[in-house]
């Protein structure tokens, strides 16, 4: 899975770069940011379901990280720390753009450029299958819609755990809650997602496969 590859790659290098970035090494910080911007962008994108909002949050997150990284005393907590900043930026943007509906993502599906970029995938055998790609895109849109129907505190943890792969310890650190609470919220978040999927009669082949 691509996310895991990036995650491993980011983790491997983050530990080396953080001490230098804390000391004020701009190059180290720049490399650190290049390792993390996609993760933060995808986290923000799943939170809002909107490209522009996700870009805004990603940018403001790294500006805040740049300002505050010298105060980070424990480099090992960087992961939960950066997600906490990103989540706070999401809350800020959410407050600012409250009137803007997250549903706008589904209206933006008409954007040809965006659509073409999203459809620009190939199958494993190298052949492009537009029907399959469109079907997957529709499925993802529906999942995003379901994601935004569940309570916000559960949604954040589902995103952090399911899509960002944070440890329960890191989620607890980011949200300032206990690990037990994080697990409980995730449990109810998955249950809520199941209800939303069933409400829309969404079933996926191989759904019960492991």
């Amino acid at each position, binding site marked *: 899975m691509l996310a895991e590859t990036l995650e491993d790659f980011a983790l491997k290098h983050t530990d080396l770069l953080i001490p230098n970035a804390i000391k004020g090494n701009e190059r180290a910080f720049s490399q650190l940011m290049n390792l993390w*911007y996609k993760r933060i962008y995808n986290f923000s994108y799943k939170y809002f379901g909107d490209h522009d909002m996700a870009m805004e949050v990603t940018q403001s997150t790294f500006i805040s990280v*740049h300002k505050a990284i010298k105060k980070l005393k424990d480099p090992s907590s960087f992961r939960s720390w950066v997600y906490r900043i990103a989540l706070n930026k999401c809350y800020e943007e959410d407050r600012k753009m409250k009137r803007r509906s997250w549903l706008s993502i589904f209206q933006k599906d008409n954007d040809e450029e965006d659509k073409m970029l999203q459809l620009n995938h190939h199958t494993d055998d190298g052949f492009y299958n537009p029907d399959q790609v469109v079907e997957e895109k529709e499925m993802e849109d529906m999942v995003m819609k379901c994601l935004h129907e569940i309570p916000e505190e559960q949604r954040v943890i589902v995103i952090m755990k399911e899509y960002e792969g944070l440890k329960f310890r890191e989620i607890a650190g980011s949200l300032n809650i206990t690990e037990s609470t994080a697990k409980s919220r995730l449990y109810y978040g*998955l*249950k809520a997602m199941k209800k939303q999927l069933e409400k829309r009669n969404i079933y996926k082949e191989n759904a019960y496969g492991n």
Partner: protein
Amino acid sequence: METRSDQELMMEYLYSEMSADEKEKFEKLLSKNPTLQQELNELQGTRNQISISDKELVDPFMFSTGGSGSVWMATRIIGNGILKPAIGLAASISLVLLLGYFTNTSISTEDGYLSVSFGKSVQENSYKDQYITQAQFNVLIDQMNDSRSSFSSRLNGVENSVDTRFASLLTDDESINQSNTQNTQQLTDFAIQLQQDNLNFLEQYMAQSNTNQQRLIEGLLVEFSEFLEEQREEDLRSIQYSLKTLKDNQELTTQETNLVLATILNKVNTQNN
């Protein structure tokens, strides 16, 4: 209903955050508890359903710090399409310059003129300034002097014409005054005549009006006197009727009185006998 502990265990198991021992124990528990196993399968099924590939459509950030410590990122500039047109424009200009090089295009800005030629040398511009000779200059001066003389003579002619016209206007002024006096006299006479006519008309109207009013008043008085006469006669008839009624009543009263007296007298006589 699952306990909180089971929820936590399921989450740890699903997301592989269990130690090997804990995992073995939990799998034993699952084998003995089909309900728990079923719920775990459902949760795993939900996980499979909600898997989404990352939307990695963002360009890498270009991070920089300004001299005053300010921070900016060029990604937004590129992403928002501010830089893209500039890059496109620069590429277009480069392409034009490259084509110009291969087609022997010559561009010159000599003497303040922009000249572009394709494969040929730049020819002298026909619109460049041309210097006149002394003879041409003298001819022009002569032409100007002739024009000035002609203009002066025409101006004098116009002045004479204006003077003549002005003098004739002064002469005409006396006749205009006489004419105005006559017109004023005629107007005065006309106004007096009009006033007299109006006066006569009003006198006739008033006389006619007085006669009509007199006749009307006389008619009204006659009608009023006739009305009074009729009222008086009506009143007289009413009075006569009332008197007659009174007289009749008096006679009836007398008859009744006589009858009563006769009755009384008859009773007295009867008692005496």
